[in-house]
């Protein structure tokens, strides 16, 4: 397993280089000149050219990329055009709210989806099971922006028990402030997990070894925990891991609606001001995060599933 983890970590390097190159080129291909944005409509062409030269934008893209790679080796992701400070500093400042929000959303997703999936799987032929299934379909169709605004209205205005956006200055405040944005994210992700987990539980309930355990007179709850749930959890974890990328994408909108000063907001500002170094720095951070979560997911699945473990060991 350790060798697998090391191999996968090393594999991340060429992927990150590929992502950085793609982003580096893409942000420059998109129309819009950061020097013109910075100088506004009164900036003369001479001044724009001077600023472009100062930022190295007058060089061919491949030369710029070479310089960028050299900087990365020294831990430098470039200097923000908009904020005038190292992009890595901006990312570090915004990382805690972004990580907190994502982790909080994952916890809430599990708290919502696991009981619902078990409930609807055990009552699959009853009305209550059908209701859960309908809720899942509805949940899949609701836009996150709308969910966020509705939650703010309910818990911030009509029944004002939670703050309307913001991040807070200490842990208890942050826990309260991030509840609604995390819940918004969780409500968009939970339907996927419920659907997958429910299907896996139903499949596991019909497995031979489960029938065997039951025929031996093992307690139903024990059967569910030891034989059904463990088996069903594996695809659910995979789905959750795969959808972390989706969650990261969703934080862009949710951070904006809830005024959470995370990486999503930084990304939006950076895109609108054509702040190339910051766009690339945030993208690389997202990429590292998603790849790390995928690696951890694979390791967790291997821990839970001997078949996956064996496949992992066999993989060259």
């Amino acid at each position, binding site marked *: 397993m350790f060798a697998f983890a090391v191999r996968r970590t090393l594999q991340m390097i060429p992927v990150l280089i590929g992502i950085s190159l793609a982003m580096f080129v893409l942000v420059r291909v*998109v*129309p*819009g*000149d950061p020097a*013109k*944005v*910075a*100088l*506004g*409509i*009164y900036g*003369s*062409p*001479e*001044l724009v050219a*001077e*600023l472009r030269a100062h930022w190295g934008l007058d060089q061919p893209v491949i030369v710029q990329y070479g310089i960028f790679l050299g900087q990365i080796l020294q831990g430098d992701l470039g200097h923000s055009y*908009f*904020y*005038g*400070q190292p992009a890595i500093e*901006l990312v570090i*400042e*915004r990382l805690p709210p972004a990580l907190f929000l994502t982790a909080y959303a994952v916890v809430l997703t599990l708290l919502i989806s696991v009981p619902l999936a078990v409930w609807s799987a055990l009552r699959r032929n009853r009305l209550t099971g059908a209701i859960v299934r309908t809720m899942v379909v509805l949940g899949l169709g609701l836009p996150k922006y709308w969910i966020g*605004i509705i939650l*703010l*209205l309910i818990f*911030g*205005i009509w029944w*004002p028990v939670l*703050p*309307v*956006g*913001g*991040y807070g200055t200490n842990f208890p405040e942050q826990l309260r402030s991030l509840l609604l944005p995390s819940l918004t994210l969780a409500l968009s992700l939970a339907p996927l997990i419920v659907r997958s987990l429910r299907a896996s539980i139903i499949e596991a309930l019909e497995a031979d070894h489960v029938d065997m355990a039951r025929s031996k007179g093992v307690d139903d709850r024990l059967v569910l925990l030891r034989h059904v749930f463990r088996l069903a959890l594996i695809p659910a974890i995979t789905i959750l891991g795969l959808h972390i990328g989706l969650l990261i994408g969703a934080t862009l909108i949710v951070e*904006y*609606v*809830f*005024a959470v*000063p995370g990486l999503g*907001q*930084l990304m*939006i*500002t950076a*895109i*609108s*001001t*054509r702040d190339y170094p910051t766009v690339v720095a945030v993208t690389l951070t997202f990429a590292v995060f998603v790849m790390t979560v995928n690696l951890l997911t694979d390791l967790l699945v291997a821990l839970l599933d001997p078949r996956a473990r064996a496949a992992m060991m066999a993989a060259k």
Partner: protein
Amino acid sequence: MTIKMGAGVRLIGAALILALGAGVAAAQERQTSEQCPAVGGVLKFARSADVSDWYYQGNNPTIWAWPLVNLPLVKNNLTATGLEGAAAESWEANADYTQFTFKLREGLKFSDGSELTAADVLTSISTAGADPQNAGRILEGTTFEAPDDRTFIINLPEPQPAFVESQLTQFGIYPAEADAQTMLTAPVSAGPFILAEWQKGQMARLTRNPHYWNQPYPCLDEVQLLVVGDATTQALQLQAGQIDIAQELPPVQLEALRGMPGVTVPVFPTLAEQLIRLQRVTQPAFADVNVRKAMNHAIDKAAIAEVVFFGTASEMNSEMPRTKYYVAQTPYTYDIAKAKEHMAASGFPNGFTTELLIASGDPVETGISTIVKAQLAEIGITVNIQQVEAGTKFDLRNNRQFEMFLASTSADQIDPQGFWSFCCAAQRNRGSAFTDYIEDDMIALYEGVTKTGGPRREEIFAEMQKIGWDDAAQLFLVFIDAPIGVRSNVQGFVVPPTRTHVLDTVYKTE
């Protein structure tokens, strides 16, 4: 030993008395007055974007917040019709507008308590003028003098009647030894507030400057500029009492907000306007004055003001924003019959097809473009709406890759010379805001106005407005007002037409 202890006790006692005395004095200084019926408190002000830095004025969110911390020599008055002194108590120009002499207020201090003298003004303005980021704003050959602590003189190499209005409201004054790089994030100036904390992209905490020249202002102890990108969230936070001022409100919610307890929605006129710029080269039909007049008559601007802006806009009646030298022209009435007459008289009697460039995801631009498309169809003009990301939209404009460009534009200075050079007078390589509108009389008048002051300056601006308006230079739509969400306990809040934040007089009641 005993004696020493006694001396120590006396010393401590004396220190305590001094400290108490100072405290009492401070408390006395902060007593309520006619100007500040209530003192102290924290004002939470939500804005849709953060400042980029505290030194340059590169974008609107920065321009608006900049005067809270920085002190220039002069500032725009609250109606955007003239100047008033900031660091300078008076100033005068010589007859040909090549020399400006400023008299500083007495006893000026920076926020750190050190004295502010003419030497600091000289260093600050000469440094800013030499900064490549301010290139072209102070002409080469300009010299500065500080003959005494309170007198500052600028000598220009050529006449510039609008120099003070155009340039000097935007240069802050800093200690002579300060460097611009430090001032970006930790400015030491002499504005009403001090930047105490800045969490970029999240919040700026400003505390009252006790050395501000205009005592007893500011009435507040602290201002928090909070970044809340979404206008709907700002409205909800205002309702919940989480913020005191919401700068951006969704127009669709204005009516509902007005009916809510504890919330007021005053509407302030601004220097912003919404119009459609017409590119003459990519769409030759726009070079035809009859086509342009037909289009101006075909659009119901009152409907745009009502449907898109929910009453917080009014029909444009000059291309000049409502600032100094603004003269109202005769509006192009909504008259389809007249519009059809102009189309028939044009070189395109059967109409033509064109494209309107707008920003995607912007409800205002979507609303306006929908109305424009429907109404121009009535006179035979087919409009295809092209939606692109906002940054891309401006790049396409700058490269003249558009036919119709939906523009929201504004003046930052009360003298319209800078605005006019961009919009209408084919300056530099921009060709009247990239439209290639070139009117020789207008250009000649503009060249004259750069060197002319006094009553003639006013006359020239009036003539230029008339030429552009009668020529239907662009498709004129509406002047935009600013509806601001304010909690009922916030008093003395006003928004000048330039939209800069003026919070000196703001106070909070219980």
